[in-house]
C-alpha cells in the first residue's frame, strides 16, 4: 500500500485547499482548476451543503486516483435528490441510483460486472447518507463488507434524515433535536446514547480499509480516498458533512462546525486496516464541546436548563472518551 508523502505544513505556512507553495504534484485535487467537478454547479442542494461538498471532494479525489475509471452507485437521499431532478443531472461521473437501502449491493453488482467483463481498471464507489448507510442500508453494507467485494462505500454523515425533513437516524448524536426527537418534555432531543458507530462495525468485518474523514480536513479526506482507491476489496469511508438546515447552523459555518466536531473529539478522525487502527488525525486545538454545540440550534435546548447543562457534560464525556480511546491528543497534553 502506498501512502502519499507527508507534508510538513509548518514549512509551507497553511493547511489551505491549495497552497501555491507546494509542489504541484502534492497539491490537493480540489486546488486543481482542471478537477473533475464530479458534482457540477447547478445542483439543488441547500446553501452551504456539507454533503454536496463532501461528495465532490471524495469523488474528485477518486476520479484522480483511478484516472477517471470510476462508476458510482448512489443511495436515495438528499444527495441523490438534489443532484438528479429530471431533466438535469449534476453528476460528471458514470452514476446510478437504485434505492435507499441498496447502494452497497448495487456497488457489489457493478464490481462483479466489471470483474466478469475483465474491466478490472474500472473501480466502484457506492455512496449514501447516514440514513441509507447506518440504518436502512446497513444490511447490504455489512454483506458487502463480509464478502470483501471490491467496492469503496462512502457514507456522507449529516446525522439525520435530511431529505425527508430532519428526522432522527441512528447516526443522530446524543441530545440533538430532530423532527422526531423534538426538544420537548423531560428528555428533550435525541436519546443520550452513543449511537451506532459504523466505522467501528466496519472494522469488525476486518476489511482492508476503514476511515473516517471530514469536510473540515480536505487533505486528510483526499489522502484517504486516494489510499482507499489503491486497495482492492471492501473499503469504508465515513465523511462528516454538516447540514446547515438540519443542524441549525449558519450556512457559511459548515466547515467551521465540522472542524469543531473534530477538534472537540466528538467526531474522531482515524483510519484502520484489517480491523486495526493504523492512524488518527490529532486534534490541533482542543475545544470544549460547547463551542461545537453552541453553533447549532439543534442543541440550543441544552443550554437553557440545568438539566441541559448536565447533558452537555455527558456529551463532553463522550468526546473525552473518544479522545482517550483513539489517542487524539498527544500524551501528556493538557486536558
Amino acid at each position, binding site marked *: 500500500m502506498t501512502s502519499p508523502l507527508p507534508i510538513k505544513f509548518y514549512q509551507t505556512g497553511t493547511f489551505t485547499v491549495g497552497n501555491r507553495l507546494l509542489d504541484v504534484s502534492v497539491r490537493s485535487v480540489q486546488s486543481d482548476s482542471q478537477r473533475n467537478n464530479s458534482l457540477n454547479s447547478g445542483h439543488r442542494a441547500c446553501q452551504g451543503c456539507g454533503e454536496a461538498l463532501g461528495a465532490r471532494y471524495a469523488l474528485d479525489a477518486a476520479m484522480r486516483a483511478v484516472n*477517471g*475509471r*470510476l*462508476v*458510482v*452507485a*448512489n443511495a436515495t437521499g438528499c444527495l*441523490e*435528490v438534489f443532484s*438528479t*431532478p*429530471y*431533466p438535469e*443531472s449534476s*453528476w*460528471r*461521473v*458514470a*452514476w*446510478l*441510483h*437504485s*434505492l435507499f*437501502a*441498496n447502494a452497497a*449491493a*448495487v*456497488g*457489489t*453488482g*457493478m*464490481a*462483479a*460486472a*466489471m*470483474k*466478469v*467483463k*475483465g474491466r478490472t481498471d*474500472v473501480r466502484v464507489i457506492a455512496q449514501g447518507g447516514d440514513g441509507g448507510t447506518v440504518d436502512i442500508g446497513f*444490511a*447490504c453494507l*455489512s*454483506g458487502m463488507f*463480509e*464478502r470483501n*467485494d471490491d467496492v469503496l462505500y462512502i457514507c456522507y454523515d449529516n446525522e439525520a434524515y435530511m431529505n425527508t425533513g430532519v428526522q432522527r437516524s441512528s447516526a443522530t448524536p446524543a441530545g440533538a433535536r430532530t423532527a422526531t426527537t423534538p426538544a420537548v418534555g423531560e428528555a428533550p432531543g435525541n436519546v443520550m446514547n452513543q449511537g451506532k458507530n459504523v466505522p467501528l462495525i466496519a472494522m469488525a468485518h476486518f476489511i482492508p480499509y476503514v476511515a473516517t474523514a471530514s469536510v473540515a480536513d480536505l487533505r486528510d479526506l483526499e489522502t484517504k480516498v486516494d489510499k482507499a482507491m489503491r486497495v482492492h476489496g471492501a473499503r469504508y469511508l465515513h465523511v462528516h458533512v454538516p447540514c446547515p438546515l438540519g443542524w441549525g447552523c449558519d450556512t457559511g459555518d459548515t466547515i467551521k462546525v465540522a472542524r469543531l466536531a473534530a477538534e472537540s473529539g466528538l467526531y474522531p478522525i482515524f483510519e484502520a486496516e484489517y480491523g486495526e487502527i493504523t492512524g488518527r488525525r490529532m486534534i490541533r486545538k482542543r475545544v470544549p464541546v460547547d463551542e461545537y454545540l453552541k453553533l447549532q440550534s439543534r442543541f440550543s435546548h441544552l443550554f437553557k436548563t440545568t438539566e441541559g447543562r448536565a447533558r452537555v457534560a455527558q456529551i463532553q464525556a463522550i468526546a473525552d472518551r473518544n479522545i482517550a480511546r483513539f489517542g487524539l491528543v498527544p500524551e501528556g497534553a493538557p486536558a
Partner: protein
Amino acid sequence: MLKQCEGSQAVAEAVALCRPEVICAYPITPQTHIVEGLASLVKSGALSPCEYINVESEFAAMSVAIGASAAGARAYTATASQGILYMAEAVYNASGLGLPIVMTVGNRSIGAPINIWNDHTDSMALRDAGWIQLFAESNQEAVDLHIQAFKLAEELSMPVMVCMDGFILTHAYERVDVPTQEQVDAFLPRYVPRQSVDPDDPVTIGAMVGPEAFMEVRYLAHAKQMEALELIPQMAEEFRRVFGRSSGGLVRPYRCEDAETIVCALGSVNGTIQDVVDEMREAGVKIGSVSLCSFRPFPSAALGKVLGHASRVITIEKSLSVGIGGNVSHNLRMSLPGRDTKVYTVIAGLGGRAVTKASLRRTFEAAIRGTLDPLSFMDLNVKAVERQLEREKAARRTGPAAEAILRDLGPTVGASASTTTHGPAAGAAH
C-alpha cells in the same frame, strides 16, 4: 440431452447455458436447489466467466443484480415467497430502470401463517412491478422459458420473471430435454445493454422524475409490455425452429376449438386440468383448457380469441385477492368485452393444498350444471371455517385462527403428512 432430473437442476443447467455473468443467490425454499446447482457449475468452472455472489438477503440479491445489469452484465437470480416481497422495491426498481434481469420464482405462498408450499400469491403480489411474468407448465417448459426469458428481457430492456410452481415443479423429477450450448448460443446472442454505467460513456441513471414526466415513463413501460405481446409469440416460434419443440408463447389452448367450457389457469396445474379435460371429453363434454403462459403482459387479445366461442370460463387460481377473489379472472374479463360469457373464479391449491383431478372434475361439472358460485374455494374445509367464524362471533379473544383450525382437524403426525393424507377428503366445491 434428455434426462430424468429434478426441475431445479434442469433450470440451473438451462440458466447456465444462457451464460449469465453475475448470479446472486440467497436461499429460500423452494428455489434453493436452483442456486445450489448454479453454485456447483460456477465453482467447478463449468460456467465461466461468471461471478456467483452469496448475498445476505433477497433485497441484496435483486440489488446486486441491478448493479450488475446496469454495468452491462447478464444478471440472474432466483427467489420465492417472502423473498420476493423482501426484495419488492428492488423488483420495481429493476423494471423502472429497464434492466433485463431474469429471475426464477419458485412459486410459494406468503405467510402468515408461514407456509412453504406452492401457490401463486408471491408472483401475484408483484404482478404490477413492471416485469414480464411467464408461468411454466412443466419442467421442460421451465427450462425453455428461461432461455427465452433472457432473449426477451434483453431485446426489450425489461426484466423477466419465470414462475414455476414450488415443489410441484422445482422438486419434481421429470424427463427434461436440456438443450446443448450450441443450440442456446444460436438462439441467444451476446448481451448488449441498451444503456450501462460506464466510465467510457458516463450517464446519470436513475434520475428523480417529477409529475411532469413520471406518467410518460410509466406509459413507456406499459408500451414496452404491449410490444412484448408481439415479441413473445415470435420468440416462441423462433425457439421452436431452433430447438424443435414449442414452448412458451402467450397462451396454450388445449382442445378449445369447439369447447363450450374453457378452463384457464397458470402453471403446472394445467397438466392436471388437461387430464380432466380428456376424461370429460371422453364423457362427451365440450370442454377445453387454456394455459396462460404470459400473465404480464396479459394477452387479452390472444386469450379473447381462444375464449371467443365459449359460454363459460372457469379460472383455477392459486392466489386469492383477498376481498375480491381472483386475480386471473379479473384480468381475463378484459379479454371478453361485451360478451356474456360466464366467468367462474375458483380459488384452489393455496398453501400447497392438492389440486386433484377429482376435485377439478367436480368443480367443472358444477359449473356446467350452473351450480357453481361465481367465486368458489376448491376443497375448502367449510366446517372448519364455519366453526371458527362462530367462535369469533361468540367471543372476542379467540386466539389465532390457524392454530384453532388445526386443532379442529385433529391430531396429525406433521403438516406434510396431514395435507397428503387428509387433503382431498376435505370439503366440496362451495
